[in-house]
């Protein structure tokens, strides 16, 4: 379903080779509190529930929680690493339905739910989500990407 560049090892899917039901390669994360602090600094998000256990408990959490936006960054990586350099991310929606905590495996999953050509552009609709260790999807979402078509390639 994809052409892999032998030099970079990067897969560049072509629109015509993508089918509804195709599953994206999983992106697995196992964040620790250090990564939360790195993300706080890099994103300028200094809400203290992400690094101060007392503040997190005061807010009703058992311990510090993962930034929702860090989860959306991982889901962005799930999509962009699949679509390769020739694809373009057009839409990314994420909804934080459940809280995730550090020191647990978080797996980004996705599958193709629709393919269509609009104005000559090959569009692929994806259902994406962050899966917790017990199988719960804490962070469902969707994405829309454009992929190169064979005629252009």
């Amino acid at each position, binding site marked *: 379903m994809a052409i892999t560049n032998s030099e970079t090892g990067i897969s560049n899917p072509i629109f015509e080779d993508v089918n509804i039901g195709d599953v994206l390669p999983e992106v697995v994360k196992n964040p620790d509190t250090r990564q939360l602090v790195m*993300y706080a600094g*890099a*994103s300028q998000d200094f*809400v*203290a529930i992400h690094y101060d256990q007392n503040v997190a408990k005061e807010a009703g959490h058992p311990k510090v929680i993962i930034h*929702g936006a860090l989860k*959306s960054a991982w889901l962005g990586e799930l999509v962009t690493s699949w679509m390769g*350099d020739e694809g373009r991310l057009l*839409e*990314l929606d994420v909804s934080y339905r459940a809280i995730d905590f550090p020191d647990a495996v978080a797996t980004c999953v996705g599958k193709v739910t629709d393919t269509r050509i609009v104005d000559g552009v090959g569009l692929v609709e994806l259902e994406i989500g962050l899966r917790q260790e017990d199988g719960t999807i804490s962070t469902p979402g969707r994405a829309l990407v454009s992929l190169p078509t064979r005629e252009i390639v």
Partner: protein
Amino acid sequence: MTTSASPGGTVISDELRSFVGLESIPTTYDIERHAVERFAAAIGDSSHLYSNRDAANASSYGSLIAPPTFFRSLLPGDYPKAYPEPFAHILDGGSKYRYNEPVKVGDRITVVRKITDLFEKHGRMGTMLFKISEISYTNQMDRLVATQTTTTITYGTGEKDSGVGDH
């Protein structure tokens, strides 16, 4: 000054309601190579497009670009008046990004945030205030490169989390 939650009442005061439609003071950021690299490292994304200049230059983008959620680091400016947050704690409800074109290292991006809706819900954590904001990102060519629509939830009393005012 701030309203408190009361049975049958609302935390959405006239003053709070007056923020719907109000735009934040525009803030402009230079998209710097090392800020992008640090962000990519923080999210754990090793794509060459964010940190390998030669490979990125040779790609279809022709340049280093920022990851899709790098916009989170481009904080909007303040509103023209102080936002009267009634609650102490904050949760992020989600984001919807729409991308028109990639952000490249060297771009200058101007950020404006506007609250489009405020409503409240009652749940496990008591009364919760939901704030829907639309953030626009415009580049140095005056082109709207992306928008982010956010849902921010605040709740509870007590000492305010130091970061609550930023979102």
